[in-house]
């Protein structure tokens, strides 16, 4: 259906910048105490990265996406800076009322650690920086680290992540342990042309329960590259809540590759609040593998100026009696552009599946562009599946209602957008966190 005009310029980019290879050598030299398997894993990942072509014009996973901003040549991959104002970062890294543990990471370095309380660690809970986990929990990492399929188009960038990742968090919850307070990971970008590779790995055993909050933030207005991966393994009957707040500055190029595997009778909730980055690409794959599992995927994005927010999702149902629900809401200001591309895949064995997918785009300017690609691939017949996508502006009646009550037009529009996002924000349990999020949205609206 798309015309097939070849694009020789883009094809030529398949190779990689030699400076990245040089940086990778430096990176490997700096790892003196890591085990051999980790070294080999990284070397293999880098070679896979180097050998894989850049996304091509004809890649269906990159339809409508701008591929011209993906040049990584200017970024510092062997970054080693201590320039961050650590006390200020720590002070700003408090989005929640309570916490079971938190780490503050500045350009891949842990600058502050709140370990998990003793009563949890005694029960076998692991809340560990990745750099420690590589040494102390090698067996766990070898079984779970980067073990979920990357299949939504950013395979090359996932390999890049594996090659350079140095920090991140591992959360392991043993059988039957329920923890109410969230575990938090704050990742700061602080250096000019810096790179960061946030990683979150959550493993929940049978009937475990936990919440994880991840924030990606910028200190300053410098350009940067962020390439994060979050993998969630939800064991039988477990319940996991995950919330990502992304507020990197608008000079940042960001990738976020998320995936979860939901086991029998488990519940996984994934919420995303996307505000920042000049060009942001996120991929979320919900793999519903055990019967009785439920996966919820929600996202809100507020795009302005020349931002491009490109979100790809996949809901794979491969067991009977499962449900999934997706709601992605975007509000677009100025010249911004969003892409929502979602697919529900129901395997032939996954009878009695209920799967829903909804994308709503609110255009706040006549130069903004919203793209929707809501897809279904259904191979089982006893299912209830639907998707809906709408794109529109604020209706005149809504504005009129507010004007008639003395609210000026600008304020009315702002209120309507807040209302539009509430459907996502009301799912964030921690009140301080949802309050912080509302503040970030307001701040962005005011700018």
């Amino acid at each position, binding site marked *: 259906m798309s015309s097939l005009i070849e694009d020789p310029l883009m094809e030529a980019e398949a190779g990689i910048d030699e400076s990245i290879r040089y940086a990778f050598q430096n990176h490997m030299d700096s790892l003196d105490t890591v085990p051999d398997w980790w070294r080999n894993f990284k070397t293999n990942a880098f070679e896979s990265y180097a050998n894989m072509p850049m996304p091509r014009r004809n890649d269906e996973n990159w339809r409508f996406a701008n591929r011209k901003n993906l040049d990584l040549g200017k970024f510092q991959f062997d970054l080693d800076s201590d320039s961050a104002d650590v006390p200020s970062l720590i002070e700003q890294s408090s989005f929640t009322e309570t916490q079971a543990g938190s780490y503050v990471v500045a350009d891949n370095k842990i600058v502050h650690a709140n370990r998990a309380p003793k009563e949890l660690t005694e029960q076998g809970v692991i809340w560990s920086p990745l750099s420690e986990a590589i040494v102390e929990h090698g067996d766990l990492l070898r079984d779970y680290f980067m073990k979920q399929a990357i299949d939504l188009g950013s395979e090359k960038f996932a390999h890049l992540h594996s090659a350079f990742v140095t920090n991140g968090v591992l959360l392991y919850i043993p059988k039957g342990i329920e923890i109410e307070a969230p575990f938090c990971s704050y990742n700061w970008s602080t250096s000019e042309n810096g790179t960061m590779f946030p990683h979150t790995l959550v493993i929940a055993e049978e009937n475990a329960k936990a919440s994880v909050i991840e924030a990606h933030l910028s200190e300053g207005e410098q350009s940067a590259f962020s390439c994060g991966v979050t993998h969630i393994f939800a064991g039988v009957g477990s319940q996991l809540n995950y919330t990502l707040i992304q507020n990197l500055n608008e000079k940042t190029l960001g990738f976020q590759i998320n995936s979860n595997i939901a086991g029998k009778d488990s519940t996984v909730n994934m919420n995303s609040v996307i505000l920042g980055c000049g060009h942001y690409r996120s991929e979320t794959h919900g793999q519903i593998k055990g019967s009785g599992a439920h996966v919820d995927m929600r996202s809100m994005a507020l795009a302005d100026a020349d931002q491009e927010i490109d979100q790809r999702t996949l809901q794979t149902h491969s067991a009977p009696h499962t449900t999934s629900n997706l709601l992605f809401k975007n509000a677009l200001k100025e010249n911004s552009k969003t892409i929502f591309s979602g697919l529900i895949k129901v395997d032939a064995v996954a009878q009695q599946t209920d799967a829903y997918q909804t994308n709503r785009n609110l255009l706040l300017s006549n130069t*903004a*562009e919203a793209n929707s690609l809501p897809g279904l691939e*259904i*191979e089982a*017949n006893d299912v209830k599946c*639907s998707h809906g996508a709408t794109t529109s502006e604020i209706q005149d009646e809504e504005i009129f209602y507010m004007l008639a009550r003395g609210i000026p037009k600008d304020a009315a529009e702002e209120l309507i957008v807040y209302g539009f996002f509430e459907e996502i924000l009301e799912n964030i349990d921690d009140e301080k966190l949802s309050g912080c999020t509302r503040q970030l949205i307001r701040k962005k609206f005011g700018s």
Partner: protein
Amino acid sequence: MTTAANNIEIDRDKGDFKYAETHKFDAGVGLNEGTVDYICDVKGEDDWIRDFRKRALKVFQDKPMPTHWATKDLENIDFNKIRYYLAGDQRAKKSWDDVPDEVKETFERLGIPENERKFLAGVEAQFDSEAAYSNIKEAVAKDGVIFMGSTDGLMEHPEIFKKWFGKVIPTGDNKFSALNSAVFSGGSFIYVPPGVKVSHPLQAYFRINAENFGQFERTLIIADEGSEVTYMEGCTAPKFDTATLHSAVVELVAMPGAKIEYITVQNWSSNVFNLVTKRAIAHENSVVKWIDCNIGSRLTMKYPGVILKGRKARGEVLSIALANDGQHQDTGAKMIHAADDTTSNVISKSISVGKGRSTYRGQVHMPKHLKGCKNNTECDALLINSDSRTDTYPAITVRGDQNYVQHEASVSKVSAEQIFYMQQRGLSEAEAMSLSVNGFVNDLTRQFPMEYSVELKRLIELEMEGSVG
């Protein structure tokens, strides 16, 4: 059900018969410049057509198969084994009496002359590469309406034909439009003068009789200012063991205020690759409506489109697809909004039976600087058996001012309660299923001309037979 089936005159196998081939003209097997030259020579075409065909052949050869998004089944087409031109005579006859006996008999068995007498304003019947019969009722011709085979149209009305030919669908639009542009033959040419409203439908019937054959008709319909026309096409072929290719290009031009309705009931046999490009340009205040029913073929890929070029133009696609064992109905719609206040509506219903697969692929495009555009898209899929399959791949881009788009799709099966309810009232399970499926498409078929909705209903009943249990 069985008694009902006995009374059904129109059925899937009705087209499954053939006559021995007695073609005077045969371009042989395979495709190269010589094939194109042969077609030009027998048709006695001008040099500009020869150049056009040869450029298109080059484009076809250079373009890769679109398998990065389309099914790999396309790779099973062997272009070197297909015969690209087979004809008895280049000029269509105006009376059934002049049509060769076996060709006439073919169309009589398909009920074409009978329908012509009953409710049609004009009929064209294409047999392999060329139209065997073409006639328009005198009353309609008197108004200046032109209805003839494309081969004749190109010869007799080059001034109208050339102006629009290849303008709605350029040669390089896709691999199969390029193939068609290289070897096209047959199809309909219609011109409706300003203000003329053709009260009865014009019909074309496409018949493939020969094995290993490729049919490449080219249809061009121009409805001048304020005119109205309805065009219906039907198609059948006998069932061969080898693959047959049908790759048409259909271009519609609706001038300001004109109204075109284009109805297709596609019932090719299950060895036919049906890869068709259909598109319309809709000028100011015009309406283009595609009604597209796909029952037959092995693989159909067809996405009728409307380029909404003039203010307040409207485009509609109503689509019904039924995919049975061994069939893949990959259908959909394209709505390209290119003027203010344009509206479009797409309603697609698909039914997958047995191992059948139905796919909806759609595109809705609203660029910037436009205002007041609206699109509504609804896709519903019904899955009958546990190994039936359905996919939906819409692509929607919206910019501009006060534009509104909504897309909805659902997938479901016939509910067990519904079937149970009907069985309690004495219907067999198969009858109940058939009734449910007809109910599923009913709100769409109600919008079709009566003759077609009746035919479609019967076809669905037949397809559903034996699908349960």
